[in-house]
């Protein structure tokens, strides 16, 4: 029969137990980490094999590329992290988005004098596609988004904003307040609006609307047409959707 340990002896006993447990715990943790690392290594290898196998498809099919991107992000592999290394070599991603970024900048800057630095995502993509030529890899809007994200560290100030039902790209650093966004969204369907129309849809006082309109005029985002019974405010970014010649 064992007798209860008391006093110092008990303390010693408990301490050695604790150490023992900690040791076991550490061992288990180490094993788990090792297993995890093995699993991750296997997974990476599989992913690499997958990428190698579907290399063509990833390069040529925008929808597939987007999915692949998402998958990589979820497991913390960033194929865009650098221009060098396995991923970039295999998929040419670094160059791909770098090149796309340059083309986006070109289209945005060259069309700025027309649209005031605000362009619909679809129009931008089409203009970029024209610029890239018929033989270039196909691109979709997700690629545009990714390329713009990659431009952020360069301080490009390019931003994607949601106006009404459309995604648009802002190439001039500025924030639309809610009033401006509202008016941009009201004008989206017809390409223009009037003080009366905005007043009817928002219930705002005419003074408030005139102030916002003046801001939009000053920013080069809209043009005024005085040859109508009521002045019309036209938004070139909605009117001109073809930028193929710039």
């Amino acid at each position, binding site marked *: 029969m064992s007798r209860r340990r008391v006093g110092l002896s008990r303390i010693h006993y408990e301490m050695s137990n604790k150490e023992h447990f900690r040791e076991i715990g550490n061992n288990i943790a180490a094993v788990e980490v090792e297993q995890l690392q093995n699993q991750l290594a296997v997974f990476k290898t599989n992913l690499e094999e997958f990428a190698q196998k579907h290399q063509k498809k990833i390069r040529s099919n925008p929808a597939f590329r987007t999915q692949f991107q998402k998958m990589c992000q979820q497991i913390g592999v960033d194929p865009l992290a650098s221009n060098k290394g396995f991923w970039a070599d295999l998929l040419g991603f670094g160059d791909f988005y770098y090149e796309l970024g340059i083309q986006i900048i070109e289209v945005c800057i060259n069309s700025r004098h027309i649209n005031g630095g605000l362009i619909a995502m679809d129009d931008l993509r089409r203009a970029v596609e024209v610029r890239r030529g018929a033989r270039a890899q196909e691109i979709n809007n997700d690629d545009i988004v990714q390329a713009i994200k990659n431009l952020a560290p360069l301080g490009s100030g390019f931003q994607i904003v949601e106006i009404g039902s459309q995604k648009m790209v802002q190439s001039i650093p500025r924030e639309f307040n809610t009033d401006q966004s509202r008016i941009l969204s009201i004008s989206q369907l017809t390409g223009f609006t009037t003080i009366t129309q905005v007043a009817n849809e928002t219930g705002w006082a005419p003074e408030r609307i005139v102030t916002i309109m003046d801001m939009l005029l000053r920013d080069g985002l809209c*043009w*005024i047409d005085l*040859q109508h019974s009521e002045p019309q405010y036209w938004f070139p970014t909605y*009117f001109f959707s073809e930028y193929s010649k710039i």
Partner: protein
Amino acid sequence: MDSPTSFQFPPVYDFPPFFTRQPTLSTWQDQAKQWQTLVLNYCRHQRQFRLTLSEAANSELFNNTAIGRKLPLAAIHEVIQLMVDQGRAEWLDDKKTSRNQCLIYWHSPEEWADLIYQWIQDRALNNSVLTLYELTHDDLSQGAEFHGMDALMLRRVLSTLVSKGKAQVFHNDEAANEAGVKFF
């Protein structure tokens, strides 16, 4: 050269506010630039060397009947003045207040001079005397870009050649039409 095809207006020609002078300076600068390009391209296509603004204001160039918009005369004046500043037009009225006519240089006088001189060279017409009328309005130059050139513009163009010693103009005070030119 005298193609009957109608002029292809740019997309901005259908943008209603293009016919209202924009209050924002940078927008107006861009708008005025687009008007200048349009005027030059239009005149070149129509082979119009001279514009009378009061008339042009009602022509299709400045008056888009399809959308019911026309550029006001004051804005037309501003556009032409900008063209004058860049050597792309020349006022023909001395008085600032009543300016209504101008020459439109879709080629600069120097470019026209080179074109005409080259044309003479190609036909080995150096050293023969041609009347100014013959040079620009006779069958001889049919098909050349300078065919039909405004007489006053032709004088300006030839004077650049004279100053380079490449031509000599013989004036006829009694009949301006019969003035002659000889190229060297």
